[in-house]
């Protein structure tokens, strides 16, 4: 750990119906199962939070860089899809083997701006360089990132 490292802490504890509650500074939120295969599940799974966090990570980095460069990004939207290598391992299916983690994450990002495409490209490249979660997950998960500038 170097001298300028910074850390964050959240506290998570059990709650009813298999949920956990996560306390973050003065906020809290509920986490459902690790992953859920029920499209009508009332809880947000840990996996869905992670995918949301990855999307939020990149969007916030794009906005931060654009602000510094005084470039107006009217709207940014992304669809993030994560795929488990073998979900049957999580479900403890007898006879199934393999890796229980994510195999790949796909992101398609739509950036709405009237600015020059070249400037947006530079913002995009800078955002990929500084986004903490993207850079962390890229070390272990195959990332497929696409972006499109729309007007």
């Amino acid at each position, binding site marked *: 750990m170097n001298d300028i490292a910074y850390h964050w802490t959240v506290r998570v504890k059990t709650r009813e119906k298999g949920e956990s509650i996560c306390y973050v500074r003065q906020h809290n939120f509920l986490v459902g199962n690790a992953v859920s*295969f029920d499209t009508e599940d009332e809880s947000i799974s840990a996996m869905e939070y992670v995918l949301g966090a990855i999307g939020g990570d990149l969007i916030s980095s794009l906005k931060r860089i654009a602000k510094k460069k005084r470039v107006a990004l009217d709207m940014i939207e992304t669809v993030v899809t994560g795929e488990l290598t073998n*979900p049957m391992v999580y*479900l403890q299916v007898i006879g199934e083997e393999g890796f229980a983690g994510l195999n790949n994450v796909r992101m398609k990002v739509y950036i709405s701006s009237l600015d020059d495409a070249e400037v947006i490209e530079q913002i995009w490249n800078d955002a990929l360089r500084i986004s903490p979660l993207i850079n962390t997950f890229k070390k272990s998960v195959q990332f497929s990132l696409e972006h499109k500038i729309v007007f």
Partner: protein
Amino acid sequence: MKKPILIGAVLYDPKVSVIWEIIADFFSENKFPVDVVFYTNYELMVEALINGHIDIAWNSPLAWLYSQHLSGNSCKAIAMRDTDQDRISYIIVKKEDNLKNLSDLKGKVIALGANDSPQATLIPLQHLIKHGLTPDKDFTYKKFNLLEGKHGDHIGGELEAFKSLEKGEVSASAMLDLNWKTWTSDGTIAPDKFMILSETDVFDHCVFTIGKDFNADVEKQFLDVLFSMTYDNPEHKKMMDMEGLKAWEKGRTTGFNPLKQAVELLNYFK
């Protein structure tokens, strides 16, 4: 706490685990705890049933026959879905090919599902043999062997077989009546271009199976809880819609004869 009964089930899709969670919760609420043990294929699960590692198996029709094969016919079929009873498989052809009956398939290629699919491979083959067509002599076949071990529960092989017919690679394909109904309704199959050439005998599908040593009182308690599930209850309806049933019925074995004949004709367990 009462010791849970162990129910075995094969997962062909992670979504199926949701069905079993609802069933397990319902049994727990009714003071009959069950644990569901998932298996990757039917062979493993049937062997677990015969070896006493699980108490009840949710068997495919082929897994039922395998249970009987391994146990010396001592297993018991105790319950099934209403939709498991009286199923039919169809031999589908293109209308434009002008095929009128099964004998017109002589010299043709027929697309089938997975090696172990009762509905899309084994029973259709039995049907063709019964009507005088010998495989590899009178016709050849192309199998779409997706996810072997799951006994065609994963209907991908059946769908691939149809797509092969659609592309003109083969002259016919086999599929379950329920899939024909779904696929002609959702646009997967154009009903004006394809037709049912022939129907197999009716057969039964999945069944809850127990071994000979399963306690009769526990069996009765299990069935009492199972049969108390109703389509009118919204929570049960969700599970029943996902699993494709409106009611649970008593198990019967009379509907396994076409598959039994197929297994014997094809020496499947040899």
